[in-house]
């Protein structure tokens, strides 16, 4: 069957996501880029997977963080690894920088939306090459931009106001991690699909390091957490 209103190809389109990851937060700091993401993989509202790596290195100079459909992200990683492999085969001393990778992803995402067959992700791309820091983002319909700090999904609502207050160009590594942890803690409290198991990825001129998974210290004894209806008389 292949006519105007429906074809076999329709059944292969992502009409909604299955297993999804939540926010990714990224910032520039003194020596490069820092990214943070938790390791949850949600199946609708069920927390199905708890050890999903949502940040991966791309070549020598870039790192990618993904929210949205996990399988689509893994497909994107196959595209990128092939791209980097074929680039290395030239063996000409040139290599893809973060700007090139971001541009490539932007075109892939936009091209798939043009085919009404989107890759269901919001991606964050960071990197350092030739002393230039780069931090950008793309979403599933191809909207993209660069900034000093970016965040996907709930992160755009909850983390970016914090970053606008506290971010500055000369953050040290320790200050950057502390700032990202503050963002991730707010997300943990307020985003129901966030989990307390996260990784922080660092990229500098020296290369990529992705931390081991770890947890944040939380404090649930705030009065408003313990008795949320106080001061809201008449509500249940």
């Amino acid at each position: 069957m292949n006519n105007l209103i429906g074809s076999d190809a329709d059944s292969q389109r992502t009409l909604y996501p299955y297993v999804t990851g939540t926010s990714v937060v990224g910032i520039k700091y003194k020596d490069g880029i820092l990214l943070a993401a938790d390791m949850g993989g949600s199946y609708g509202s069920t927390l199905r997977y708890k050890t999903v790596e949502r940040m991966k290195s791309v070549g020598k100079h870039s790192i990618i963080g993904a929210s949205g459909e996990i399988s689509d992200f893994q497909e994107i990683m196959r595209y990128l690894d092939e791209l980097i492999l074929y680039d290395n085969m030239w063996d000409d001393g040139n290599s893809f920088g973060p700007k090139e990778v971001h541009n490539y992803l932007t075109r892939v995402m936009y091209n798939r939306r043009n085919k009404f067959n989107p890759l269901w992700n919001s991606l964050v791309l960071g990197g350092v090459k030739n002393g230039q820091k780069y931090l950008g983002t793309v979403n599933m319909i191809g909207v993209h931009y660069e900034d000093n700090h970016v965040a996907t999904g709930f992160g755009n609502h909850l983390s970016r106001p914090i970053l606008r207050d506290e971010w500055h160009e000369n953050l040290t590594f320790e200050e950057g991690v502390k700032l990202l942890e503050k963002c991730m803690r707010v997300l943990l409290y307020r985003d129901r699909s966030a989990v307390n198991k996260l990784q922080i990825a660092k990229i500098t001129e020296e290369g990529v390091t992705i931390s081991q998974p770890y947890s944040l210290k939380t404090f649930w004894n705030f009065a408003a957490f313990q008795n949320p209806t106080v001061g809201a008389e008449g509500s249940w």
Partner: protein
Amino acid sequence: MTKQQANWSPYDNNGGTCVAIAGADYCVIAADTRMSTGYSILSRDYSKIIQLADKSLMASSGFQADVRALQKVLAARHLIYQHQHNKQMSCPAMAQLLSNTLYYKRFFPYYAFNVLGGLDSEGKGCVFTYDAVGSYERVGYSSQGSGATLITPFLDNQLKSPSPLLLPAKDAVTPLSESEAIDLVKTCFASASERDIYTGDKLEIVILNASGIRREYLELRKD
């Protein structure tokens, strides 16, 4: 699993407002630098104005991914034009090219609302205004995008351009001096950002005249 998301849409509206004013020997083209989606701000510093040729500038609002695709097509077509004719495209030629490029996608349109400003071959200011599918018109001034409903009537009131029905046809360029036009643009955006949530953060003004290109910036409301 029950469907939890709204139906997928290939389009988004990233907001933004563009204004262009043509004078006797200059053209002022301006746009804010906010990029939004729904009630969220994505970036406070995203430029909507690009230079397509020596004497033509385009400001675009609407769906950012389509706008960028459109800008890339125009840049590629202009590069081919330069190789074939060994000169820069004129602003009226670029205006026709933009119209054709938009109409080419008539049945899956670029969701882009553009104003094209520049100097014509006589050095006179020109402004071309478009809809998303390529209808266009040469005018003396124009506004497009989310704040256009607020700014257009204000410009109509201030600039009182001659009716296009007049015979013989009268020139559409505005009688303002360059600095008066710049001040008018600043007033427009300061007002639009009070009422339109998709307009704000920063105003980028590009001024094109015989001596070249100049840029000015003005901070706008950030809420």
